[in-house]
């Protein structure tokens, strides 16, 4: 055990790979990785065995620095494990446990190496003890680095999920619906920031062209706060629609929003109505339609006369 530190780590791992594997697997099963049912035992077994194999190879090639190229494959494998766990909804602790639960089996392997040396007696014991500190440091450093890598990938995966949901929400929440020939409605829900305004405007203008609409009703019932920026975004959308030859009506202005806008000094230079129904009535009048009460149609009498 007198060689460099990584040599002794590599030796210990190579000599006790099977024990490390079974201890590691047992620890993970104990910690409840399987209990949630999100991963099968066979899958976990394959993951563990494959990872231990690439870790041993990396160590054998003389590295204890996780950033070294020899651990490239180990990192790739962790990236995969972490990504799939992130997608499956594992907690950060459960994900990190994959690497960190490897520590105890690795230290146990060291203990066995020292015990083996002790049975030989003499100088071998002293050499083994001297190597202990370095071995501990190497293993800790390596596994910590790999653990951090796992967490980084895990967080990145989660961030990707959040970003995707954000995009989905901004698309979902800006539908343009056709109320009648030439009459569109755009029910806005949530915060109207610059990015969403862009999506809204594009959707609206495209639908105006597709449906050759004359009137677009922008309903802001679902917008909780109308400040000057929101008002400005609304005005821009209205102006763009006008350039396309469509008139806009803003509806869904609640009493508290109306009062606040007056205090702010915002003037919406556009027809506005309290409810979508009122706005629809105005729109129908403008295109020369009216809703009239139909004469009651008697249901045809059933059966024979």
């Amino acid at each position, binding site marked *: 055990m007198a060689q460099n530190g990584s040599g002794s780590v590599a030796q210990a791992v190579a000599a006790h790979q099977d024990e490390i594997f079974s201890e590691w697997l047992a620890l993970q099963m104990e910690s409840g990785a399987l209990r949630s049912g999100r991963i099968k035992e066979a899958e976990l077994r394959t993951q563990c065995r494959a990872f231990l194999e690439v870790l041993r190879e990396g160590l054998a090639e003389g590295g204890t620095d996780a950033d070294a190229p020899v651990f490239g494959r180990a990192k790739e494998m962790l990236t995969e494990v972490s990504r799939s766990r992130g997608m499956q909804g594992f907690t950060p602790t459960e994900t990190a446990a994959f690497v960190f639960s490897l520590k105890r089996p690795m230290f146990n392997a060291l203990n066995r190496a020292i015990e083996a040396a002790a049975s030989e007696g003499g100088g071998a014991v002293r050499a083994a003890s001297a190597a202990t500190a370095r071995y501990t440091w190497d293993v800790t450093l390596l596994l910590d680095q790999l653990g951090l890598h796992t967490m980084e990938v895990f967080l990145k995966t989660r961030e990707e999920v959040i970003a995707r949901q954000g995009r989905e929400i901004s698309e979902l929440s800006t539908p343009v619906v056709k109320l009648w020939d030439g009459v569109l409605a755009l029910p806005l829900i949530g*915060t109207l*920031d*610059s990015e969403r305004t862009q999506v809204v405007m594009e959707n609206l203008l495209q639908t105006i062209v597709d449906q050759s609409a004359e009137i677009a009703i922008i309903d802001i019932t679902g917008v*909780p*706060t*109308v*400040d*000057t*920026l929101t*008002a*400005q975004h609304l005005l821009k959308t209205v102006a763009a629609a006008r350039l396309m030859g469509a008139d806009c009506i803003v509806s869904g202005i609640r*009493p*508290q*929003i109306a*009062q*606040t806008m007056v*205090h*702010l*000094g*915002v003037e919406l230079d556009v027809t506005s109505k309290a409810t979508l129904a009122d706005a629809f009535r105005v729109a129908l009048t403008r295109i020369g339609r009216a809703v009239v009460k139909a004469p009651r149609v008697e249901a045809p009498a059933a059966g024979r006369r």
Partner: protein
Amino acid sequence: MEAAAVFEIRSSDDVVRVRQEVRARAVAAGFGLVDQTKIVTAASELARNTLDHGGGGAVRVESVSQGGRRGVRLTFEDQGPGIPDVEQALKDGFTTGRGLGLGLGGSKRLSNEFAIDSAPGRGTRVTIARWNSR
């Protein structure tokens, strides 16, 4: 809810968070719907000013009470370039950016108390308060 809390304003998501926090405070102070909307809108304007003109900063949100009335006090602070002419900045239609130029004056009209302390190079501090009118 604690008496005072400080929130960073670094992105437009933070502006949304400030609005939500202020609304929660206003509801807790028993504000009616109109008063809630007014203080939330004022907070939104000032938070965006802090972000766009002050280059980011922080807001201190306080629940206050005085003589049996309850209210919300907000203090926006940034270390930005400051405002050379405060009076001009409060005028409607004055803007250095591309906004409507109504934010600062508007938020003054939406609040019961309004104080601004700013000078070029010293950053800006705006304090507003709104009391429960019920």
